């Protein structure tokens, strides 16, 4: 049952992501991405990570994607226009590149000695995760929180009104 659910969720996620990246309208793309992220969150849950799954929903699908949407709507971005010229010229190399990478990745994974290994039943209580975060990884948490602080300051600096003459 779990295994089937995992595959279903996996393909759902890939489909949603594929739809996301092919949209011309950024709003649609973000909506599809949110759907993909939900599927990913459930996969996390199936892999025994309830806390990560919850934060995936709250932080990613909730906060970050809403931020994207907010920016898109604030700037009033129109759907991207189709570029001039024949399609294959633009797509051809790209498809070649992506499919090569994909093939390489899959081959690498299948050649991997770990390929036959199964992921057994696993459940990590949020309590243990929290203890690990604030004991062994306390320094990392501190560093990341500083990074968040700097990012906030950076965002504030970038968001200030432009000096006169630089605005078009």
């Amino acid at each position, binding site marked *: 049952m779990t295994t089937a659910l995992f595959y279903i969720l996996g393909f759902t996620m890939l489909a949603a992501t594929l739809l996301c990246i092919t949209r011309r309208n950024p709003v649609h793309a973000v909506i599809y991405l949110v759907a993909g992220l939900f599927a990913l969150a459930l996969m996390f849950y199936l892999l025994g990570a309830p806390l990560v799954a919850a934060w995936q929903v709250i932080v990613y699908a909730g906060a970050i994607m809403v931020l994207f949407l907010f920016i898109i709507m604030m700037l009033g971005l129109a759907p991207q226009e189709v570029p001039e010229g024949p399609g294959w010229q633009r797509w051809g*190399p*790209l498809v070649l*590149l992506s499919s090569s*990478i994909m093939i*390489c990745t899959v*081959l*690498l994974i299948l*050649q991997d000695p770990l390929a036959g290994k199964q992921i057994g039943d696993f459940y990590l209580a949020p309590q243990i995760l929290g203890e690990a975060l604030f004991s062994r990884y306390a320094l990392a948490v501190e560093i990341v929180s500083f990074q968040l602080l700097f990012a906030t300051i950076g965002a504030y600096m970038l968001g200030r009104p432009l000096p006169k003459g630089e605005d078009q």
Partner: protein
Amino acid sequence: MNESLLFLIPLLPLFCAVINMLFGMRLPRLFTEVLAVIGVAGAFGLTLLFWDYAEGNGSRAVLFTWLNSGTLNVSFALNFDRLAAPMTLMVTGVATLIHLYAIGYMREEADYARFFSLLNLFVFAMLAIVLADNLLVLFLGWEGVGFCSYGLIGFWYRKLENAKAGTKAFLVTRVGDVFLGVAMLWLFALTGTLSISAINAQAASISPGVVIVLSLLLLLGACGKSAQLPLMTWLADAMAGPTPVSALIHAATMVTAGVYLLCRFFPLVSLSAVAMTAITAIGALTAIYAASCAMAQRDIKRVLAYSTMSQVGYMFMAVGAGTVAGAMFHLLTHAFFKAVLFMAAGCIIHQAGGENDLFKMGGLFRRGPTELFWVFLAGAACLAGLPLSGGFFSKDGILLALYTHADPVFRVFWLIGIVTALLTAFYTFRLVYLVFAGEWRGSGSPHDLPWLMRWPLWPLALLSLAGGLFNLPALVGGGEALHHWYGTMAGRTLTVSPDVEWMLAGLAAVVAAMGWLAAHWRYRNYHAPLENPLSRFLLSGWQADALLDRLFVRPFNAMALFSWIGCDRTLFDGSLEGLARTSTRCGALLLRITTGRLTTYLSAFAWGFLILLGWFLLKLVEGGGQ
């Protein structure tokens, strides 16, 4: 008292030079002048005060270790010994009088601080040569006097020919310095020390062939500074400098540095008969060459310059004949009488209204202060070697040493010395007659002579006349004081019968008298200068400048031109510019990749990623599924 106080002697002029150099123009003029005089007069006083240190084997004082690297250990050390002490006294004493004279001479010069600081610096450098305990300190002074003489000859550098004369002096003496440098390095390689006394002590252990070469190198070094035969062309042009400079540098002190160097290394040099003969030969040839040139010169200072060259040639002959005492004796008397001659010549030029040409002077005996005539005559008598003057005794001593030398070749040099003495007497009195006798032929009006330009002449004139007393030969009841003072350093002792000595003295007197009579006959009444090829040849110094120009300057210029156009421009610049152009083109090609577009960079990044993955895949396939 402490021996390291001896350092005050050279450092006092240096201190005053530095003060004048830094603050001279901000201080009152009187202060600058007094400071300059104090620098040298103080050194003179200190030399007298410390005289006792020179006795015995002399005193050695180390100020600090200058260089210490492996076996090379050079201290900043002084050696105040029997050879150095009289020289120090002479340098500081004459320099003091010249400084006083210079105050009067330069009283209208605006750039006085530069002048006086260079003069003081020069005295410092000269004292470094005289007092140096090791070759490196000596070399420091050696280069120092070269630099100061360059700065002082070209003192009025706004006139191009003065600046050129300074450059010429600098470059020509530098040629000699190269040889001295080579000798210095070689001596260090052989003996492992730069100390002069240690080198002299080890001289006997150096193989004879090397001693010859080393002595010749030292000789060439000495030739550069002392304006001897191959490297003599700079001295006559050096007269472009102010007259006190000519008196100080080109008469009393710097040109004698070469003689002093050879005397310092006498224990080494005297080991090689070949080198001694070479020294004598150089001296003899220079003496007669310069005397012949002096006969035809028209510029009063150039006459004196050639006479200096000629007299320094006598000193070389003395060293070559093996009598250090004789060389130093002549060096001292020459310093006095040549200083008085130059300083008097400065006064004469002043009196003649800035005119240097002998043939536009005349009648100065009646026109100028008569004291000028008497002091000039005193110097001239010494130069000509009139009996009982200082120059007579010193020159006679040298001729005696040449005559009594065992090697028959030295008789030839003796003969040259006698002929030179004749020429010297002739051109000296030619000078006297042309300047003082007859009617005034010039056009300028006399400048007034300040008091300071007149009285320093008197002590010098008296010293030159009485200079013989320093080393009065036993023949006339003298004590040969200088010879005894030098002790073991004096070189060969001359043992000769009184008959020969009287004969030589008489011959010298006769020769001087003949020179005088010839000049009297020729120049008592004024004659216009001769215009024939011989006089032109002599006037130009045997065309030495043109010869050197052909031999060295032109080939050098041609080579430099070839290096510039042929090598540098074509070969190096061409290849380098070609290289630069190629790399610019390569850069332009690379510039096309650098589009500045984010998408280009991203896809490049993706390609790189793909290559990385492919690499891993390849490794995995090669690994064969283990």
